[in-house]
Structure formats: structure tokens, C-alpha cells
């Protein structure tokens, strides 16, 4: 085993992480599995006012909340009479690097600067890399972004090619890797070598930075329409977007707004497969991240993930790749907003869910992202064709990830598939049992924790656990 072999570096994971995020996660442990989530968040010292003040210094946030009147009108042409809620979108493209990820990066970079780190590093192939690079540039910190960028044939996913360019434009070093989860191994090597701050997507700073997004939505909606939104829909991957937004809504008093997760269905495609890598037309906001992270958030690069989506999720839906490309076209041609496709995942869900609601109700899509070369439906569909994927008009229900992308022929064909929340909770509890060390059993504190995590009663948690372990009461 060499000093830099996979096993050698992974063995040092805990100490490297401890030095690079400067949080002693161990002190929050309260049970075998349980930990004090709220204290972990509160100990950072960032309440909403502090986060807003930090973000103001780098022009992050205060993005427009735009009513999509023509898309709402189109939804009403296909809804039942009296149905078709008003759809709004929070135009997060207006952030410095073009996405809500600036909120996420801002507190991490601020913290790195405050604590005297000379640089920041992050493992990310998406908008977050550009956000960290942009914030680091403004703070005068060095920045390294580790990306999973190309397959073994050297074919670069065009969206990631654009992210490479953006990160380098902000003066960051970009380490481009071929396909595989060893992205995190490389991040550890970089952190060990440089002593940089780990601007992980999953620290409390990252999630607290997004709370301002939910907070702004609640206040802007109040100001514009005199009410809180009935529904807020978040494009869902690792869970930070939904968690932060939901927490921010609650902090603004919007406790009754329903929070819905929407992901692109990429079922059947393996996230670490070299073959499948360029057969995905989305690099984030898809089920390849959202299902594993919802059913077990503590699979991230930090010991305790601050993004715990299942705690905040009222409903979880999927849509297809073709529907998102169709919606991206509608947003440009009906609303004059040309935005990147991934953020429009939740807009597809909004278009469908608005038709379940009355005309007077309000649905908010909580983000957009910038678009450009590579990061565009044309680039993605041209690559898909090159990879042998069948792109055609038709019924989106015929969608098969990796084999065909079906662009709807009519707005009435847009639909959501509901993920069974009971299945998600059981899956979470199954993973919880699996993570329990051999011979250990759950305490009362753990049961209370699992009930909070899954938003069901302790009795219900116990019933599911009994079923899963084959015990009877």
C-alpha cells in the first residue's frame, strides 16, 4: 500500500476532514445513531440575519421572484376549470456566478477566510464549483475544484466542460478526473497537501447559506401577494437545496407552505459507471443522487450531513429528462427567461401540481440557473444522439433513461410520478439499522431521533424497525 493509494488516503479520512472543516462532529453525538442536529447548526453562529449580512457583502441573494403568467395560462388550458395555481420562479440566475449555489458557497468561504485558511477546495462537477471559485476570488482565497469530467474515451460531459471553463475564469485550479467515486479520494489528497478549507456541500455552512433563499421567498411572496406560498418546489439531489429552503421558509413564518422535492428520473443508470456517464443528460437534480441521499444522508464527505431532506419533505416526485427540456423551451419562449435545464426540473413539477390546485393558490419554483454553451438542451440532446440515445417527440411516459428521451408533443402530457413516502421512510430506517455497529441496539434517544428524521411517530418507527428486523411485539 503506497502513501497515496486509495486505501491509505481513505484511512486518513477522519483526520483530514477534521482539519479541513474545523468542526468537532463527535461532540454532537447523543445516541448510537442520534446526534443533536439543531445544536450542530446553531453552533456555527449563523442565524438568518448574519447569513443575509454576509451574503450582502458579495452581492449574493435578493434575486427577483417572477410570476410566470404565460406558463400559468398554458397550464390552465389543460387543467380542469377553476384549477391552475399561479406559478412563480425565484430567478437565482441573478446571483454572481449564476445559480443559488452562491448562497451555499458564501458562508463556507467567509468562514474559511475568518479562520485564516489560505484556500478552499470542493469536489463538485456542477454549479457549486463556479460558486466556490467566484466567492473565493472575491475573498482573495486560492481555490481548487475537483471534477468528475470525462469518460474513458475522453468524452467530456458538455455541462461539466462549461463548469471547468467557469471555474478557471474565476481563477480556480480545476482537477478534471475520469468517471468514479474517487473524486472524494482526490479531494482528500488535495486537502491533506494544501491544508485548505473543505467547502463541502454538506456542512452546516452550506445549508445555512440556503436558508436565506426560503426566507426571501416567504417575504417576497408576502410583499407581492399578501400571502405565503401554498407550495414550494425544490429540484432535489443531495438534499441541501430542499433542506435549506424549507428551514428558511419556517424561519420566516411560512410554516404551512408545502415543500415538494422534484428530481429527474435517471433510474437504471449507475452513477459510478464509465459506460453510463455520458448517457445521462443531467449532471444533478436527478434520482441517482436524490434517492440515496434522502434515504441515508450520512453518505457525504463529512461525518454528519447538514442536508437532511426527509425531515422537511412533504412530497417527492420525479419527472423525465424530455419533459425538462420541453419546459426549458417554454420558459424561454413564453416567459423570455433562457435558463439552464437542471433548475427547470421543479418547474415541470410546478406545471403539473398547479393543475391540482385552485386558480387563487400559489406555487413557487425556488431556483433558476444560468445557461450557456454546454449547459443547454441543445448541447445535451446533441450529445445524447452521439451516444446512440433515441431522441423523439412522443409520450414522455415511454421515457427510458439511457435509451430514449421523449420530448412531449403537448403540454397535457406533462405529469409527475409520486415516490411513495412510506417506501422512502422504510428505506431510510433500513439504512439506519445497517449502519448500527454489530451488537449495538437503539436507545430511546435514537428512536426519538429516527422519528424526527422520518417525520413519523416513534411508535410507527418501532413498528417498521420490528418488521425490518423480523421481530414481533
Amino acid at each position: 500500500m503506497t502513501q497515496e493509494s486509495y486505501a491509505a488516503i481513505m484511512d486518513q479520512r477522519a483526520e483530514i476532514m477534521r482539519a479541513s472543516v474545523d468542526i468537532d462532529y463527535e461532540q454532537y453525538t447523543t445516541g448510537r445513531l442520534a446526534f443533536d442536529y439543531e445544536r450542530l447548526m446553531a453552533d456555527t453562529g449563523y442565524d438568518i440575519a448574519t447569513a443575509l449580512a454576509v451574503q450582502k457583502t458579495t452581492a449574493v441573494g435578493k434575486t427577483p421572484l417572477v410570476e410566470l403568467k404565460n406558463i400559468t395560462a398554458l397550464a390552465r388550458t389543460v387543467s380542469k376549470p377553476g384549477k391552475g395555481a399561479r406559478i412563480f420562479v425565484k430567478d437565482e440566475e441573478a446571483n454572481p456566478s449564476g445559480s443559488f449555489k452562491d448562497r451555499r458557497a458564501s458562508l463556507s468561504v467567509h468562514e474559511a477566510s475568518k479562520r485564516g485558511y489560505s484556500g478552499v477546495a470542493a469536489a463538485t462537477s456542477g454549479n457549486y464549483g463556479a460558486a466556490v471559485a467566484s466567492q473565493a476570488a472575491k475573498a482573495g482565497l486560492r481555490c481548487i475544484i475537483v471534477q468528475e469530467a470525462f469518460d474513458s474515451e475522453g468524452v467530456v460531459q458538455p455541462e461539466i466542460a462549461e463548469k471547468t471553463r467557469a471555474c478557471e475564469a474565476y481563477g480556480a485550479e480545476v482537477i478534471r478526473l475520469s468517471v468514479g467515486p474517487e473524486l472524494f479520494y482526490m479531494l482528500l489528497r488535495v486537502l491533506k497537501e494544501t491544508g485548505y478549507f473543505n467547502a463541502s456541500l454538506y456542512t452546516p455552512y452550506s445549508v445555512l447559506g440556503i436558508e436565506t433563499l426560503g426566507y426571501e421567498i416567504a417575504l417576497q411572496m408576502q410583499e407581492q401577494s399578501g400571502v405565503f406560498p401554498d407550495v414550494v418546489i425544490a429540484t432535489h439531489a443531495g438534499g441541501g437545496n430542499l433542506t435549506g429552503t424549507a428551514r428558511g421558509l419556517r424561519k420566516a413564518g411560512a410554516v404551512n407552505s408545502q415543500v415538494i422535492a422534484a428530481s429527474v428520473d435517471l433510474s437504471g443508470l449507475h452513477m459510478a459507471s464509465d459506460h453510463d456517464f455520458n448517457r445521462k443528460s443531467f449532471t444533478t437534480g436527478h434520482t441517482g443522487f436524490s434517492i440515496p441521499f434522502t434515504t441515508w444522508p450520512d453518505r457525504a464527505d463529512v461525518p454528519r450531513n447538514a442536508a437532511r431532506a426527509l425531515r422537511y419533505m412533504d412530497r417527492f416526485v420525479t419527472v423525465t429528462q424530455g419533459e425538462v427540456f420541453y419546459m426549458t423551451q417554454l420558459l424561454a419562449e413564453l416567459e423570455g427567461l433562457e435558463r439552464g435545464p437542471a433548475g427547470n426540473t421543479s418547474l415541470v413539477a410546478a406545471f403539473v401540481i398547479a393543475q391540482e390546485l385552485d386558480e387563487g393558490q400559489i406555487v413557487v419554483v425556488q431556483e433558476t440557473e444560468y445557461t450557456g454553451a454546454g449547459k443547454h438542451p441543445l448541447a445535451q440532446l446533441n450529445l445524447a444522439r452521439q451516444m446512440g440515445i433515441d431522441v423523439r417527440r412522443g409520450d414522455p411516459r415511454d421515457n427510458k433513461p439511457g435509451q430514449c428521451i421523449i420530448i412531449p408533443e403537448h403540454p397535457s402530457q406533462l405529469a409527475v410520478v409520486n415516490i411513495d413516502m412510506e417506501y422512502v421512510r422504510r428505506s431510510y430506517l433500513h439504512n439506519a439499522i445497517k449502519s448500527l455497529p454489530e451488537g449495538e441496539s437503539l436507545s430511546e434517544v435514537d428512536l426519538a431521533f429516527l422519528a424526527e428524521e422520518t417525520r413519523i411517530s416513534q411508535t410507527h418507527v418501532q413498528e417498521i424497525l420490528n418488521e425490518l428486523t423480523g421481530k414481533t411485539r
Partner: protein
Amino acid sequence: MTELIEKGTWVEIYNVVLPANERAPQVPEDTQRVPLEMRVKGFLLAPAAIGEDAEIETLSGRHLRGRLAEVNPAYTHSFGSPVPELTPIGCEVRALLHEKGRMQ
């Protein structure tokens, strides 16, 4: 004779980080069969030829060695051709809105 690239030139180097048989145990079979490869850009620290060993200083100030792969590498990602399945969508939905008298 191989042409030497001047010191200070913006270049990309290539390395195999983990050979095919040393990858993370959890990677699927197709990924196990190929190495983990790395590409990083920076300024060349001493003259070197394409395909030969070279050392660079990256934008974060790190010094890295690897095979000199490209000189002043281009950003080649683009939009590509218009996609016929997307082109008519705007006209279709505007027609629907006009038909129902809903266009704002």
C-alpha cells in the same frame, strides 16, 4: 527533433491517478476495468515536449508533474445544431394560448 514548449506557456498535463487494478472497491465492473485519469492545467515551469514529462504551476500555486498533453487547451464545448424536436415547441404552445384566448 521534438519541439520544446516554452517555459511559462499555459498547458495541460495528464496523469493516471489509480491504475485499473487499484480503483476504489465499490466501483462497478466497467469502471474497474479502466484507470482513474487526471487532467490539470497550469503554467509550464521548464521547457518540455508534448508527450514528455513536464512540471506545471497551477492556478492555486501548486506544482504538479505529468505528461504534457496540450498547449493552450481550447474550450470546445458548444451548443451544436438546433434540435428539430425542440424547434417547433414555441410556435405550438403560442398557438394553444391564442386558441384559448389566454395569451397575455
